[in-house]
């Protein structure tokens, strides 16, 4: 690390430092003790790598240029370099100037370059991390590093324009002499003119990168006079150098000359435009809303199905292929889409492994809370979960490296880059503006421009998944980001509100028809829906629901204690038209027979082994309306319905159980089961989502640490007097206040050895049970466990 860079960083004002930390949040996890520490961290290879990953193609080109040109570099030289790579007049020179100024400012903000406009330098470490900047090979000095001096002399002799012993300015070092020769344009031009056309073609191939090639026996020692093949001609003239037994590289000086003074072949200072079909935004919103409604419905359907018939958890974790297939049939979705539904439900904590010895996938209690919320809120929570989840459902059904099928809910599906790819892809869609459905190719091209270093098959695949899944979840409609999708991607809580008016409104009536169907022309209100689920079978779902009445379903309603009159009254109340005659007939016909069955089996009788209890029931005044009749010492019959009887007995303080003729207890409904396993923790928040307070506090802490560091301040003495004491809650409140105000506090602290100490602190941040603060009594930044702080008092 250069001291110069640390000094420059120290000279940045607090606002600039805050911008740096916001742009590169990994620099403050954990917070460095002082600015020198920050500078060290900012120039570590991994941190620089991550920062470079965030650069767009043009800014990256600028930093590459800085890495290639001899430092320090004036901005005007950068401009001249770029001008040569761009077509005349596009962009105009003033545009280029401002674009370049912007890029340079961005580099300074991110501390990837420093220094004034007339002497810009890449931050320490940048050159090393940029392995092949702009596709250029290493400088000649590097390429010929391992050559023996004799061999170097041979090369120099062969390529020097004059006598072999003409000494240059570099004194005795042949390597430097060779580099100097190659750096001279006329030498390169002359050497290139000498070689055969095939050799020339090979050079052109390497000129724009990749600058290395493989060939056997790269280290062969050939002279210009003895060179045979085209490659040998190049090796003999030092236009290629061997960097290993079988690898050769094109020296940077040669490549630069071959490129004709340009550094980049296709430099585009502005992002490529997004192209695609135009669609009315309102249409896309509606289509997306339809899909959102469907998606939330699918999740509910999934949980309902799994609550009565849960699939097993595989020994390796996850869901079996067969269960996924079955679920996709149940949900009437293709498998990839069913996998998405399952994975989002899982990430949202709606399903988890539970049941007997964690052997089944079951809905969690969180599902019950989710289920009763409004559709738009349910959707918003699912969509937000999807955005943040670090799993890639799109991988389900593909084969892994060992050629095994990837299953849904399997631990292997984690992809750390997924949330970030989703966020950037949606940002691109948002940039497309209203009504434009960018083609996947143009989205990919845009992303390639915005993050040229983040490429590769896996990433492209994640982008593809994102586009497909955004459509399936209803964030986009017909390829256009919907209004609610835009709000959601921006983290705006209004997303649900935007979606709400587009969703079907709940209705409280159905259309009854002679073919014994009832059509609910929209989602039904809760009570009616539950009632219809009982008295009819669902035939098709979607915007509307089609129910079918049949003997069996009517009987089910009667079993649940409904009377025929009640059923008909309910139908009449909720039907716009009169109840069709066949339906009326069906209900009374089933009820007629249902009554008969009740007499024999599920009828209203009370049975008790203890006659005394039955005596008591008969004697009870409250039993009078039940019109009880004793059939035997241990049996009482009643003309009231079973449900009434059971309810009345309950009211009288008994605990009756309904039973069948065999004496078995009747269980008329399957129990919806729940797991008690807590929902999995949400995917950890993406690091770059730091809020302003944290950033400001971190900068303050570093600045404070820095002044301490610089001043080599002697620690202040522990204040005398009684150690402050305050209740726990007050401690936290006081510390928060101090963080916000940037003031100092005096605390009592029990250290790791159990000694009671007192400190003067400048608190910076508080999280996870710890306080990070500059400790003036120790002149260093420390972390303090909150539970060991015995008290806080303010200092003035």
């Amino acid at each position: 690390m250069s001291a110069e860079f640390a000094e420059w960083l120290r000279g940045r004002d607090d606002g600039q430092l805050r911008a740096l930390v916001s742009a590169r949040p990994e620099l403050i996890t954990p917070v460095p003790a002082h600015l020198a520490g920050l500078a060290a961290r900012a120039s570590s290879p991994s941190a620089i790598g991550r920062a470079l990953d965030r650069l767009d193609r043009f800014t990256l080109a600028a930093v590459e240029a800085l890495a290639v040109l001899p430092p320090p570099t004036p901005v005007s030289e950068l401009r001249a370099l770029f001008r040569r790579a761009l077509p005349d007049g596009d962009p105009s020179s003033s545009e280029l100037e401002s674009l370049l100024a912007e890029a340079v400012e961005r580099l300074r903000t991110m501390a990837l370059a420093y220094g004034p406009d007339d002497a810009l330098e890449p931050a320490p470490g940048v050159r090393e991390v940029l392995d092949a900047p702009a596709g250029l090979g290493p400088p000649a000095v590097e390429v010929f590093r391992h050559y023996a001096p004799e061999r170097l002399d041979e090369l120099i002799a062969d390529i020097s324009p004059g006598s072999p012993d003409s000494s240059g300015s570099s004194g005795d070092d042949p390597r430097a002499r060779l580099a100097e020769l190659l750096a001279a344009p006329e030498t390169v031009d002359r050497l290139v003119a000498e070689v055969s056309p095939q050799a020339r073609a090979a050079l052109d191939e390497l000129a724009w990168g990749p600058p290395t090639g493989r060939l056997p026996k790269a280290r062969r020692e050939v002279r210009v006079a003895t060179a045979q093949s085209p490659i040998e001609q190049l090796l003999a003239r030092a236009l290629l150098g061997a960097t290993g037994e079988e690898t050769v590289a094109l020296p940077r000086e040669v490549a630069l000359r071959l490129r004709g003074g340009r550094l980049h072949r296709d430099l585009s200072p502005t992002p490529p435009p997004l192209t695609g079909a135009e669609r009315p935004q309102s249409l896309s919103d509606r289509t997306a809303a339809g899909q959102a409604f469907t998606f939330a419905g699918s999740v509910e359907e999934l949980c309902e199905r799994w609550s009565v018939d849960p699939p097993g958890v595989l020994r390796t974790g996850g869901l079996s292929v067969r269960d996924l297939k079955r679920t996709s049939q149940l949900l009437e979705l293709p498998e990839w889409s069913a996998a998405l539904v399952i994975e989002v439900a899982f990430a949202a904590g709606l399903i988890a492994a539970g049941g007997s010895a964690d052997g089944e996938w079951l809905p969690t209690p969180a599902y019950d809370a989710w289920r009763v919320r409004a559709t738009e809120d349910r959707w918003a929570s699912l969509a937000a979960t999807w955005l943040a989840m670090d799993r890639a459902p799109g991988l389900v059904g593909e084969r892994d490296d060992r050629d095994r099928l990837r299953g849904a809910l399997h631990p292997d599906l984690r992809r750390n880059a997924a949330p970030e790819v989703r966020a950037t892809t949606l940002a691109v869609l948002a940039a497309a503006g209203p009504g434009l459905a960018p083609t996947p190719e143009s989205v990919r091209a845009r992303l390639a421009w915005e993050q040229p270093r983040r490429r590769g098959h896996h990433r492209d695949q994640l982008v593809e998944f994102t586009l497909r899944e955004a459509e399936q979840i209803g964030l986009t409609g017909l390829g256009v980001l919907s209004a609610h999708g835009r709000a959601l991607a921006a983290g705006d809580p209004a997303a649900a509100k935007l979606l709400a008016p587009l969703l079907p409104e709940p209705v409280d009536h159905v259309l009854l028809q002679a073919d014994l169907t009832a059509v609910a022309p929209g989602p039904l209100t809760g009570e009616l829906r539950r009632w219809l689920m009982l008295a009819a079978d669902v035939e098709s779902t979607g915007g509307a629901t089609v129910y079918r009445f049949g003997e069996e379903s009517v009987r089910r309603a009667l079993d649940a204690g409904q009377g025929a009159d009640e059923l008909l009254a309910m139908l009449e109340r909720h039907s716009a038209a009169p109840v069709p005659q066949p339906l009326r007939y069906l209900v009374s016909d089933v009820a007629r027979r249902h009554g008969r069955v009740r007499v024999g089996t599920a009828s209203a009788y009370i049975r008790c082994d203890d006659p005394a209890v039955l005596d008591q029931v008969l004697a009870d005044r409250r039993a009078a309306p039940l019109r009880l009749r004793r059939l035997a010492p241990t049996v009482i019959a009643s003309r009231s319905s079973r449900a009434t009887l059971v309810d009345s007995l309950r009211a009288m303080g008994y605990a009756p159980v309904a039973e069948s003729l065999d004496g078995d207890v009747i269980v008329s409904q399957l129990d919806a089961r729940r797991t008690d396993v807590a929902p999995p923790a949400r995917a950890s928040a993406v690091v770059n989502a730091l809020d302003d307070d944290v950033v400001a506090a971190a900068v303050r802490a570093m600045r404070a640490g820095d002044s301490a560091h610089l001043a080599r301040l002697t620690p202040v003495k522990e204040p005398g007097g009684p150690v402050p004491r305050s209740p726990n809650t007050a401690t936290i409140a006081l510390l928060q206040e101090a963080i916000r105000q940037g003031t100092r506090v005096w605390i009592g602290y029990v250290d790791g050895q159990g000694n009671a100490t007192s400190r003067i602190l400048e608190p910076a941040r508080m999280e996870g049970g710890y306080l990070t603060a500059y400790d003036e009594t120790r002149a260093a930044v420390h972390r303090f466990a909150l539970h060991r702080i015995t008290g806080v008092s303010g200092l003035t």
Partner: protein
Amino acid sequence: MNDGPLIVQSDKTLLLEAEHAAADACRKAIAPFAELERAPEHVHTYRVTPLALWNARAAGHDAEQVIDALITYSRYPVPHALLVDVAETMARYGRLKLEKHPVHGLVLTTTDKAVLEEVLRAKKIKPMLGERVGDDAVIVHPSERGTLKQALLKLGWPAEDLAGYVDGEHHPIALAEDGWTLRPYQREAADAFWHGGSGVVVLPCGAGKTIVGAAAMAHAQATTLILVTNTVSAHQWKQELLRRTTLTEDEIGEYTGAKKEIRPVTIATYQVMTTKRQGVYRHLELFDARDWGLIVYDEVHLLPAPIFRMTADLQARRRVGLTATLVREDGREGDVFSLIGPKRYDAPWKEMENQGWIAPADCVEVRVTLTDEERLAYAMAESEERYRFCSTTPTKTRVTEALVRRHVGEQVLVIGQYIDQLDELGEHLGAPVIKGETRVRERERLFQAFRDKEIQVLVVSKVANFSIDLPEASVAIQVSGTFGSRQEEAQRLGRVLRPKSGGGGARFYSVVSRDTVDQDFAAHRQRFLAEQGYAYQIVDADDVLAGD
């Protein structure tokens, strides 16, 4: 929110609210690509299937139109997944085309090389194809034209058949419109078929499909082979052709169990065509007996499997299918599509009823209660005897008599399954009985007498359910039915519901024994009829008897 009449379901059914102001416009917009599944009073259900979408493509509609119709009329936002699916499915039709090549004869061409590669790799397809001709075409063995189309449909890449037809042997046929004229929809149907080349015309029962067939023949002006379900139906066709066209007795041949005439226009039954002797179809040569210019398939939804196989070899001849429904119990809609052709015409059913072309009908189910002895006997009967027992109870006879009395002066048809019961009923009602053993000549005499209103009550066994035309039966009473599929049975029952000269509605009773399997079968019938939009009600036999 849009206030449209249509609700799109996730299982690709479309619910159309019939009373909605825009319902008619919506029906017109979705009819090309969705099959009407049921049409009860308030909400009609249409289903969007791949075949329906390909039918729409064949009729010149594109995915944009379909999506536009869905979005325009849908009350709620249409799920995007469904729209994508529609577009993708429709895009599959016509990627492959069967065409005539001036040099190579029949070739399969494509607009999408990847699709051709995919089908070429299919094992079943390979043997049907010859050499590659360039990148995007391959020679097809002419004999495989039909089977290839079937196989391609199974792969999900239906081919558009543009290879054209042979003209066949010329034979002048014209419609003789003396005292009657072609109804507008019949003309449209025949024209639509002719312009499409080959295909299926869907018209409800009683809408005059025979006349559409005749009009198609008048277009073709060529020798014609007509395939019908049975002998009576063959006679009916012959009569109708004599009445409606310039054809004379000598020009029309019958090729049935009894007669084997081959004339310029020949009517053959499915049964005779599928008769095997020593494992060989005996009458296959009929297809080659003449150079047929047109083949008419009556009741395509009943077309038996062997006929499909024979039809596969007739792809160079024009084919027209006539049916009331494209839904087949055996699920071979795909074969109809690939071998006979796409749907060319589909009548707006409700409109036809409104215009009086077909009769509105009332269906009444009369439930009789078995006596206690009958109930006991029923409970003890062997399960295979139960249906017979409960559907022939004496109580039914009494109720039937009461119903016939109620409709004195109207033409009443009593339909049953069991001969004993029918004989008994015939005796009680003093009406002639037509059953399997009744000679064809006698049958036709009785039918004619019934038509002429010389007899008012006719008792018929299931033989009369097939393709017969009893225009003046305004009341039908079914006392026992077959246990066939609900589609088939109700279809047959629907046949008596034809337009009446007086314009009044038809009435269809079925007498059913309460709490027996008879009632279960009736439930299927009820569902089908209600779904067809017929008014349906259930009454107790006691009420009928009391009202007497």
